[in-house]
């Protein structure tokens, strides 16, 4: 079909620049999944990591990519946004130590006691860390949390300035590889030390757009579903496509390859399903956010999401 | 209404409580050459600044040029200030044409005139020099040339020749007299050189020490053109002694 008949949709990413988590969208653009669904999708990057919600609510974008914690606070702040599908189905947030340094789920208390933990100050880490500390039987005062929104956790970790860094495995591991440090990285998944196993990222839109553009959103999710499956099946091709689309991203192909490959396992649940959201994931999240005081009340889980646009079957 | 070109009427000036210029009146007929002498700090430059519109006098007085008040206005006189106020970023030639540059487009005629007089009065080799490379007397001459080429009918000259040697000073004086005579301009001239004041002017105003006021208005009827031998003329000598006496009696003033 010709461009003129395609419906334009602006997709707001969660980070000011492109990286490999954008692969499904790129594949959907470049392999024609969007076009076949009658869509012309344009990617927009926010000026900083906390503006995606504002891009959506001000109409600058129609569909967005955001963390579930951002969804939590946005809804709490009264922003009329709604999640229309998980991007990842489980929690790959983890603690990392310098290669060769002791970090083990079995004796996590001893490994963390008195240590310095790096955090970007992101809401996700803030929400997860209390679970880990509680699990380890530690009070906040028994560790040192370093917050550095403009820092670089890997450099600080490798240079020995912090003992533990926090991130998701798909971003941290390629970084380690890029650093060419000897020895395998030491990581402990948050879920192994008490963090709830809930998705980190979702696709979202505004309530009004969802009401008026149900067909478009269904088409979008259907195309993204096919593209995600294709990208998971052809990781190398998909990553090359990403690199070709964003040649000046500054990331190496190796980094993107590894990053995407490490992302694939988190995209599906135990039933090999994409996207499907549950009441449980949202109420767990909301409770956690309320627990650290980020939101004032725990709303019904259905406030956050709808599965109505997911591809059938 | 009088036919005086300049009519200063009861002008006084007080700086922060100190009266510098007592109420002073003076009239200058069109085409006349009037000198002002007076002790240092008596308010001569202040008077000029008021006439030129740079200072606003205490309320009550008025300054009229050709009958209309110019209090606080400017643009009606050619004024050579006591400092040789050259523009540091302009060459000698461009400093001489500075008044044109400040008021309109500088024409080739302006430039030619500047070059001509600079060459005639010994600055021909310095047309492209910046002021910092000039001697004190050369700077003063440039400032004087700038004032003359402004072609204003009323000239205020504040010690224009103070830094010049006798010979150069004579040249400048005769040039000034020529211009004055030929173009019918009116000149108000501050000097500390009593000889000079008598040699040049029609009238000499003597001012008292601070707070300054005009204590004598002496007509000078010596015939023109005056040659150097006028210095020995009895009328000259008498006038000079009158002025000297007025100036020296200041302690009692």
């Amino acid at each position, binding site marked *: 079909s010709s461009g003129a008949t395609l419906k334009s949709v602006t997709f707001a990413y969660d980070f000011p620049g492109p990286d490999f988590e954008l692969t499904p969208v790129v594949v959907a653009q470049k392999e024609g999944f969007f076009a076949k669904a009658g869509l012309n999708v344009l990617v927009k990057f926010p000026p900083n990591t906390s503006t995606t919600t504002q891009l959506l609510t001000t109409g600058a974008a129609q569909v967005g990519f955001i963390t579930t914690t951002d969804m939590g606070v946005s809804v709490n702040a009264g922003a009329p946004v709604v999640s229309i599908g998980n991007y990842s189905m489980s929690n790959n947030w983890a603690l990392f130590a310098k290669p060769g340094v002791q970090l083990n789920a079995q004796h996590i208390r001893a490994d963390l006691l008195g240590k310095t933990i790096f955090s970007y100050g992101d809401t996700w880490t803030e929400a997860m860390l209390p679970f880990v500390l509680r699990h380890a039987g530690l009070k906040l005062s028994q560790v040192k949390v370093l917050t550095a929104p403009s820092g670089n956790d890997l450099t600080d970790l490798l240079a020995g300035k912090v003992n533990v860094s926090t991130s998701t495995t798909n971003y941290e591991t390629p970084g380690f590889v890029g650093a060419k440090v000897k020895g395998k990285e030491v990581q402990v998944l948050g879920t192994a030390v008490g963090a709830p196993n809930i998705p980190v990222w979702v696709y979202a839109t505004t309530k009004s757009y969802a009401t008026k553009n149900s067909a478009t959103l269904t088409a979008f999710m259907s195309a993204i579903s096919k593209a995600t499956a294709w990208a998971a099946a052809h990781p190398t091709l998909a990553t090359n496509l990403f690199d070709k689309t964003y040649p000046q991203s*500054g990331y190496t192909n190796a980094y993107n390859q590894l990053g995407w490959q490490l992302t694939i396992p988190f995209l599906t649940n135990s039933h090999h399903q994409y996207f499907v959201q549950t009441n449980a994931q949202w109420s767990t999240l909301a409770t956690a956010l309320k627990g650290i005081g980020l939101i004032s009340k725990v709303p019904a889980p259905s406030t956050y999401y709808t599965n109505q646009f997911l591809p059938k079957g | 209404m009088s036919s005086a070109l300049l009519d200063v009427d009861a002008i006084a000036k007080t700086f922060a409580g100190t009266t510098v210029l007592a109420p002073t009146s003076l009239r200058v007929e069109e085409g006349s050459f009037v000198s002002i002498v007076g002790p240092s700090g008596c308010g001569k430059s202040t008077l000029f600044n008021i006439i030129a519109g740079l200072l606003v006098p205490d309320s009550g007085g008025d300054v009229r040029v050709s009958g209309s008040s110019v209090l606080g206005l400017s643009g009606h006189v050619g004024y050579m200030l006591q400092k040789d106020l050259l523009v540091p970023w302009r060459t000698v030639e461009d400093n001489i044409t500075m008044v044109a540059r400040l008021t309109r487009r500088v024409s080739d005629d302006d430039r030619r005139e500047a070059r001509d007089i600079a060459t005639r009065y010994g600055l021909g080799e310095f047309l492209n020099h910046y002021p910092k490379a000039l001697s004190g007397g050369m700077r003063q001459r440039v400032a004087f040339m700038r004032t003359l080429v402004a072609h204003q009918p009323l000239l205020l000259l504040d010690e224009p020749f103070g830094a010049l040697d006798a010979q150069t000073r004579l040249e400048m004086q005769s040039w000034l007299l020529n211009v004055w005579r030929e173009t019918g301009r009116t000149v108000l001239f501050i000097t500390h050189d009593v000889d000079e004041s008598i040699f040049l002017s029609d009238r000499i105003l003597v001012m008292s020490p601070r707070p300054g006021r005009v204590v004598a208005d002496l007509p000078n009827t010596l015939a023109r053109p005056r040659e150097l031998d006028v210095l020995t003329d009895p009328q000259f000598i008498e006038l000079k002694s009158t002025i000297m006496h007025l100036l020296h009696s200041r302690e009692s003033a």
Partner: protein
Amino acid sequence: MKKTLRSVLIPLISIGIVGLIWQLVIVGFHVQPYVAPKPWDAVMAVIQNWGLLWPLVLGTIRETVYGFFFGAILGVVLGVVMSKLELIRRLVYPLLVLSQAVPIIALASPLVLILGFSVTPKIVIVAWIVFFPVTVNVVDGLTHVDQDLLNLARVYGASSWRTFTQIELPGISTPLFSGLKIGATYAVGGAIIAELVGSTGSSLAFYQEHASANLQTPAVYGTTLVMTVIGIGWFLLVAGVEMLLTPWQRRNVARRRRVARPAADQ
């Protein structure tokens, strides 16, 4: 000739020394490549990726140049208006200080939201950074212009415009160019921040940001080198223009009799 050579050689030497110290630190303290690269590796990272970098560099230069010009003009205009009108100065000065006390990042995001992701917000941000030192220096410079020269202009009833071009502007050349040189130096940094906040994908800033996430320190430091070279080049350009426009600062005699009428006289 010899002087030009010297004025190019000495800065190069100083940069060489920095490179040497850098190399010595890396080797001497056994700094790992993921913390900081050797200088030569950084240079190589630039050379090898030049094809990729060049369009990004051009983009940054463009933002810098436009932003600098708008900022410089805005800075002079604001400075002049503020120095003439006491009331405006008092009203506007707090806002100017405000505009700079607010971290640029905090400003950049709303700006990008309003102006979109074009080159416009970047130029605006660079101009935003550049104008301030110019304005402060122009305001302070104008309040201290030689009163006697101003009186000269007043005596002859010069218009405000001629007083400005003939007396005030040359009279503040030193502080004006100080402000412009400071602004020129900041311009690149401003462009980089602007790129971080408002680029759809490709920009020098993002190239570096991602190289950093990659721990490709040679590329990170190489990009910094490139940015620095742009900054120094821009600074030198402004300093050169200053030399050209203020000959009376260095010479006793103007270079030669002018034949054509210079534009300033019109």
